[in-house]
């Protein structure tokens, strides 16, 4: 492919370009979901794809999530590489059985004889003033399941490349799209050699404390680090990019340097990915830690109505509050 930079693209458009490139590169790639065709998806992520690749490859499905994932499994068994869209995070649960019970286990059940190259795209997270079931962060419910991989890009370039890599993966990948960041622009370098899909990235180097996040919270953490710098604190921000597997080596290296870790995600902290990271990093870095690993995230309550989400979601102040508490040890 000719080297080219797409310049500044919003995250949603970067995913669109990624899907387009994947559809062009491999005739077995399919895009399927509710309203992904003529409408281009409710977030326009699949805009124009059906027009260019036809109804056979960009498929408007019946409104049945289990059916979408279940038939995607059958298509994968036939040799296709379906990329399915679940319209919103809170709508994935009718498909949860097919994902957990069938998709995740098929490769092992067949003793490795079949592969399940299925990508499940889920626009997730809050911050857009949506109604109930449109703002959830269910990633831990999938990261907990062996056989699945879970990733979430935080910026346009990652959105492009991680989607390409997810589609090329022979394992099922749950691709969590940070919907509040869909409109954030960034440079997409389509000629770059991307980092491995499940490798974390130090988004901002620092020396005093590590902030670890993924998806929509990376931007929040970068803003927090910028604010902390004004107070003379040097925060390192690790963009995990992948929630399963988690690149603990990169986090470990960072924590061995800073001695402090705060994990930030929108999902509830109880049994969340922050809990897993805290446990693992405590095991790995016990003698390097100057303070307990702290977590900032959602509460053990249903996602609140939109008028309360500003208070509910981790923002700059809540992240910096945790930073203060960590540094106070």
């Amino acid at each position: 492919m000719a080297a080219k930079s797409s310049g500044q693209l919003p995250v949603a458009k970067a995913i669109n370009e990624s899907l387009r490139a994947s559809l062009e590169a491999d005739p077995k790639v399919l895009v399927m979901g509710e309203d992904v065709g003529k409408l281009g998806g409710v977030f326009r992520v699949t805009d124009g794809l059906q027009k260019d690749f036809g109804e056979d490859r960009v498929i408007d499905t019946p409104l049945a999530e289990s059916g979408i994932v279940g038939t995607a499994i059958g298509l994968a068994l036939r040799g296709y590489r379906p990329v399915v869209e679940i319209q919103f995070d809170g709508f994935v649960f009718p498909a949860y059985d097919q994902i957990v019970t069938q998709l995740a286990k098929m490769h092992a059940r067949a003793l490795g004889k079949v592969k399940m190259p299925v990508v499940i795209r889920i626009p997730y997270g809050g911050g857009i003033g949506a109604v109930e079931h449109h703002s959830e962060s269910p990633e831990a419910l999938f990261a907990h399941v062996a056989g699945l991989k879970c990733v979430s890009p935080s910026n346009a370039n990652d959105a492009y490349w991680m989607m390409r890599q997810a589609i090329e993966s022979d394992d099922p990948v749950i691709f969590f799209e940070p919907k509040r960041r869909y409109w954030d622009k960034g440079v997409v370098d389509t000629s770059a050699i991307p980092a491995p899909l499940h490798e974390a990235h130090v988004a901002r180097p620092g020396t005093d404390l590590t902030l670890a996040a993924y998806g929509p919270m990376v931007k929040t953490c970068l803003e927090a680090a910028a604010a902390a710098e004004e107070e003379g604190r040097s925060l390192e921000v690790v963009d995990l990019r992948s929630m399963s597997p988690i690149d603990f080596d990169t986090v470990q290296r960072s924590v061995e340097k800073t001695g402090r870790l705060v994990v930030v995600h929108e999902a509830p902290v109880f049994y969340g990915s922050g809990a897993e990271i805290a446990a693992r990093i405590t095991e790995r870095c016990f003698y390097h830690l100057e303070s307990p690993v702290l977590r900032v995230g959602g509460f053990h309550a249903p996602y609140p109505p939109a008028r309360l989400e500003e208070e509910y979601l981790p923002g700059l102040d809540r992240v910096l509050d945790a930073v203060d508490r960590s540094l106070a040890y």
Partner: protein
Amino acid sequence: MTVESTAARGTSRSSSGKRTAAAKTAAKKAPAKKSASRAKRGSAPAQPELVQLLTPEGERVEHPDYAIDLKPEELRGLYRDMVLTRRFDSEATSLQRQGELGLWASLLGQEAAQIGSGRALRDDDYVFPTYREHGVAWCKGVDPANLLGMFRGVNNGGWDPNSNNFHLYTIVIGSQALHATGYAMGVTKDGADSAVVAYFGDGASSQGDVAEAFTFAAVYNAPVVFFCQNNQWAISEPTEKQSRVPIYQRAAGFGFPGVRVDGNDVLAVLAVTRAALEHARSGQGPMLVEAFTYRMGAHTTSDDPTRYRADDERVAWEAKDPILRLRTYLENEGLADEAFFAGLEKESEELGVSVREKIRTMPDPDTMAIFENVYADGHALIDEERAQFAEYLASFADADETAGTAGRGH
């Protein structure tokens, strides 16, 4: 107990002269076709009509919409398939009783539904089974011993689905109907004329996944045959706890044909499944076949049917035994001689011996198989846990040597 003796037992029962509803010969027209059968046959049946070509008494009857004309060797072949399938099944039940299997789901009574449909398939057709399709597996050439692995507990599936176009057994009820539909959508995209069969039961007909499969298959005109073995019981729940209409009638609401066939009549099942497969591969989309049959045994070896159903029901269905009626037909028509039956008895014994030997020598998997094939492209956590567990196991190496169990893989 041999298969032949089971059939003989059935003979004495059927001679009581009682006829049950399902034994009434009644015609069910294929929805796409016109049929004058009702008028010709006089009184309306009390039960929904079902396609039958061989009565429980072994009498060959005709049906206006579904004809079949088989050579004597083909008829003997169907008989052989059913006898050997039953033998394999009873052997597996015995092996469970002997502790060689953790569980077994017997197909006793459903041989005609499975052999009739299985023998309608072409090699390139693809099957998505439940966990009871031992007869269909037989028709697709799957090594019977392979079916036992998951019931013995040495794997959770255990064969390459693509080597025989026979997907892994699916335990969660109805899930595979969607896989079959997706696979069939892929067949269409490939421009192939293969067909796909989704097997499921009367209980599964209540599952949302089955309803969604019907919807997707209809909307995309997918070449899939939904083959429901209505064996009357979903563990302890009778079919009336699943549906207020005969299951085959559900198809109409989704916009494709449904037909009920006598599931204990191998000829009718073969004819109807052939027609349904042809319907699918000729671009006419899905079809639902309800094979009306009976689960003669327990749901599985862990089940106790005496808690929920009367024995006289089972006795009544014994008179409709699928193997017995074909044997009667073969004998009455002089299509098979004593040498055939004797040869089959011998083959049946040999199959039993072979299955017993294979299962008793089936090795346990290596401990580290826990970590195998979880991912196709690997996963850092699995690598870490595998290494840690290997190290943990290795810490017992000295003790193992002392106990004389070294070399067992850990």
